[in-house]
C-alpha cells in the first residue's frame, strides 16, 4: 500500500493543490482509496466531506477500486457517429467484462469518457491517458498486448 500521506504532503504548500495530489495518488494506485481521501482532508485542513466532494466531482477520479490500466472509450458525438458502439462491443468481448467493470486479474478497467480531443482519428480510446485513434476491432489485441 502506498503511503498516501507522504504523497499528499508533497502538495501541502500548493494553494488548491488537492486535485494535483489526487492525480499523484491515482498514478500509483489507479483510484482514490478512502484512507487517501481522509489523509488529504487532514493535510489540506478541510472537512472530509469536502475532500470527498472533490474526489467525486471529477470523472477522472474514482473512489472505487478499479483495474490497474484504465481503458476509456470516447462516446462523444464525433466518436459516436464514427462507430464507438462497435469499439465498446469489441473491447467487452476481448476482455470478457462489461463497461464499468474490471477484469478478474485486476489488469484492466473499462470506462466511458467524453471527448478526449483526438478527433482527427475517431473513434478514440485512451489507456492510462495515452490516446489511440482510428480504433477498429482488429487493432485491439495488439494495443492491449502493450499492457499485459
Amino acid at each position: 500500500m502506498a503511503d498516501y500521506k507522504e504523497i499528499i504532503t508533497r502538495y501541502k504548500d500548493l494553494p488548491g493543490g488537492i486535485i494535483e495530489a489526487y492525480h499523484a495518488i491515482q498514478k500509483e494506485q489507479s483510484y482514490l482509496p478512502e484512507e487517501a481521501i481522509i489523509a488529504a482532508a487532514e493535510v489540506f485542513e478541510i472537512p472530509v466531506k469536502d475532500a470527498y466532494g472533490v474526489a467525486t466531482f471529477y470523472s477522472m477520479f474514482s473512489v472505487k477500486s478499479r483495474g490497474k490500466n484504465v481503458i476509456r472509450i470516447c462516446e462523444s458525438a464525433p466518436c459516436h457517429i464514427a462507430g464507438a458502439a462497435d469499439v465498446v462491443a469489441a473491447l467487452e468481448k476481448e476482455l470478457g467484462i462489461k463497461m464499468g467493470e474490471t477484469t478478474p486479474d485486476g489488469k484492466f478497467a473499462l470506462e466511458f469518457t467524453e471527448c478526449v480531443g483526438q478527433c482527427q482519428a475517431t473513434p478514440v480510446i485512451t489507456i492510462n491517458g495515452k490516446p489511440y485513434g482510428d480504433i477498429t476491432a482488429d487493432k485491439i489485441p495488439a494495443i492491449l498486448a502493450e499492457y499485459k
Partner: protein
Amino acid sequence: MAEEMRVVLRNYGKIDPLKIDDYINAGGYKSLEKARSMSQMDVINEVKKSGLRGRGGAGFNCGQKWTFAYQAQADQKYVICNADEGEPGTYKDRIIMENDPHSVLEGMAICGYAIGATKGYIYCRGEYPYVVDILNTAIAQAKEKGVLGNFDVEVRMGAGAYVCGEETALIESIEGHRGEPRYKPPFPPVIGLWGKPTIVNNVETFANIAVILEKGADWYAGLGAPSYPGTKVLTLTGDVVNKTFVEVPTNTTIRQVIYEFGGGIAGGKAFKAVQIGGTSGGFIPASLLDTQIDFDSMAAIGATLGSGAVLVMDETRDIVDVVERIAKFFEHESCGKCAPCREGTMRMHKLMSKVNQGKGTAQDVALMDKLGRVMSVACLCGLGQAAPSPVLTTIKHFKADYDAKLQ
C-alpha cells in the same frame, strides 16, 4: 480555392516547439519586449483596437476585459489561460500548445504586464497529460532564459469536468474545489482567483496577442469579418473527406469550410447537417451554408461559432440519434448546482431517448422545445444555457426526422 491564413499557427511546422531558441529566432518574445516599453494602457488599447474577441466561445472583446482588471485595485492579480478544451470535436488548443507553447506564454505575459499581474496559471484538461509536459518544458526554458521577467506561470491539471471550461468553475477548480460556477456578477476581472482580479482567456486568444503587438491593431482589424476580426482555428470531424484542423479568416463561409478545406462529404454522399461550435452548438441545414463563420453571422442564424468544432453529417445520419447522444452528454456533465440545468438536462435526455426509441409523441417534442427555451434563459451558466441548442435547432430545421420517429 480559399486558402488557409495562419496567424495563430504562424509557427506551425516551422519551429521545434520544445526549443525556445527556435521561437526566439522566429521573432518570439519581441512583442513582450515591445509591450514592456509601452504604457500598460497603450498595450490594452492596442488589443482593444484590434477588435480581438475571445476565442473560447463567448466572444467578448479581449482588450475591454483587460481594462476591467487593469482598473481594479488589488495587491495581487492573476492571468489564467483556459486550456480546459472539453467541447467535443475540438482539439485546436491542443494543436496550438503542442506546436507553439511559447506563443501562449508570451500572450499571457503581455496580459500580465498590461493588467499588473505577476502570476499566471494554465489550466490544462486532465485528458492532455502530454500537453502538460510540453507546457512545463516551455515554462522551464522561458525561466532559464529570463524572457518572462517577473511573470511566473504554473500549470494546473483538470480531472475530467466539461463545466470547468466555464471561467468561474475553472477558478473554483484551481482553488481545489468542486468545479461549480459562481454567481455573477462579480465577474473574474474584478473578483476572481482567491478573490483577486483575474483575466481568464482561451489558449487561442492568448496565441493572437503577440502577433497583434508585432503587426499592429490596424493590420489585425483588417483580417476577416470586421465585427469579429482575425482568424479561427477549426477542427473538422464527422463525414468530411479531410478530418483535420484549418485556420481560416473569419469571413470564410461554412460552405467553404466543408467543401474547400474539408474536401466535401466523404464517400460521395450528400450533405445533411453540420453542427458548429462543439456539442453545444446549433445544427445547421444546407440552406444556411453560405453563412460566414464569424460570431455575429452565426448568431444571426441561431447558431454559434463556439470553439470552432465542425461536425459534418451525411445524408445517412440519424439526427435524432445523434442529438440523444448529445443530451446524454449534458446530463452527465451538468454540475448539479442549479436546478434548471440539473433537472432540465436529465429530463431532456429522457425525452430524447423516448423519441429516439420510437415511443415519443408530438407532445413530447413540444415539451422538449419548451423545456429547452426555459433552460436557455434560466440556467446559471453557459453549460445549461447552451445545452438545449442542439435539440432546439434540430426541432427547427430537421422536424421531419423527429416526425418519422413519433407514434
